[in-house]
């Protein structure tokens, strides 16, 4: 005689979670595992355990498709605007909409700022001297902020192309990079490009990664901005004695060249 006791059997499952804080944007994907299990006691009388009957194997969420926040008001100023001259001092100012957290949120966080310079900037003089101590940081110890050239292509594939200039500014783990207006100062090795209307784009990213037990994760992106640089040569003067080819400069007038 068939049993009349009903059994509830489900196959379609839906779970909704609210107020989940999105992760950072990464080039790698994070695996999400869903396990279905049921209680059973083997052998009889033993402690009941959960036995997995089904689970995901490759479910991933491609966080590289997450949209990063926008760095606003990114602009560059230079004191030396003559083409092919070493950049006297370049200032990059920008505003962050996000706070890049420090160890207060996770003791394993590492924070960094990545800068991609327009391709025509010349860095043959070596790594530029970049000062980030005027940024809004929880710690402003200049000695603990490091700058390294990036030729990895990890953050921008052009960084590994000869002639392109990329730098990573690393902050101490405990540092919080706050929201709001920031500025960094660049001096030294960079040289202005030739005079072109649009030399290329500055690209700036804030990044974070974890370092757990000596294992570092990929950098994840938080904020990003791109600005087109615009290098225009200013009018300059070539002194008359520089024009003289035979040492007979007498009577020669200074010549001028025009900017564009």
């Amino acid at each position: 005689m068939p049993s009349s006791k009903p059994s509830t059997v489900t196959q379609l499952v839906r779970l909704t979670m609210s107020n989940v804080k999105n992760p950072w944007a990464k080039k790698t994907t994070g695996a999400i595992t869903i396990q279905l299990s049921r209680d059973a006691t083997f052998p009889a009388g033993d402690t009941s355990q959960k036995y997995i009957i089904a689970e995901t194997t490759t479910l991933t969420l491609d966080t590289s498709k997450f949209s990063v926040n926008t760095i606003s008001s990114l602009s560059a100023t230079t004191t030396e605007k003559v083409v092919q001259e070493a950049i006297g001092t370049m200032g990059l100012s920008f505003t962050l909409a996000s706070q890049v957290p420090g160890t207060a949120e996770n003791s394993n966080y590492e924070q960094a700022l990545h800068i991609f310079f327009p391709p025509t900037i010349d860095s043959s003089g070596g790594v530029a001297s970049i000062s980030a101590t005027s940024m809004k940081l929880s710690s402003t110890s200049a000695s603990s902020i490091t700058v390294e050239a990036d030729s990895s292509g990890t953050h921008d594939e052009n960084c590994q192309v000869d002639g392109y200039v990329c730098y990573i500014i690393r902050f101490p783990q405990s540092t919080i990079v706050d929201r709001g207006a920031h500025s960094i100062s660049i001096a030294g090795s960079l040289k202005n490009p030739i005079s072109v209307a649009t030399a290329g784009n500055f690209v700036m990213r804030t990044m974070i990664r974890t370092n757990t037990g000596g294992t570092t994760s990929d950098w994840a992106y938080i904020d990003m901005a791109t600005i087109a640089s615009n290098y225009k040569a200013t009018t300059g003067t070539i002194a008359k004695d520089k024009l003289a080819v035979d040492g007979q400069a007498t009577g020669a007038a200074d010549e001028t060249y025009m900017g564009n």
Partner: protein
Amino acid sequence: MEFSASFSLDARAFSPYAITDTDVTVSLSDNKVQQLATYDFSFTSPVPLEVDTAGCFIRFIFPDDFIITSGDFATFEGYFQMQPSSSTRT
């Protein structure tokens, strides 16, 4: 005289059913980094889950970089079929 011998089956090496990516749908209300969003997971189990007879547990494991501490489990739904538990038995 023949004796019966005890025999145990070690099922630890058995593989659970696989839930493939195509079985699961994940939708987000907002995909901007570090924003609070609502996540909606829907999937079809490859094996019937007998809720009232054997108990059923569903475990979600997220990557470390998800901050779930502020997450709220808003709803959990199962779409049930009612059927006799022993319809083929007598």
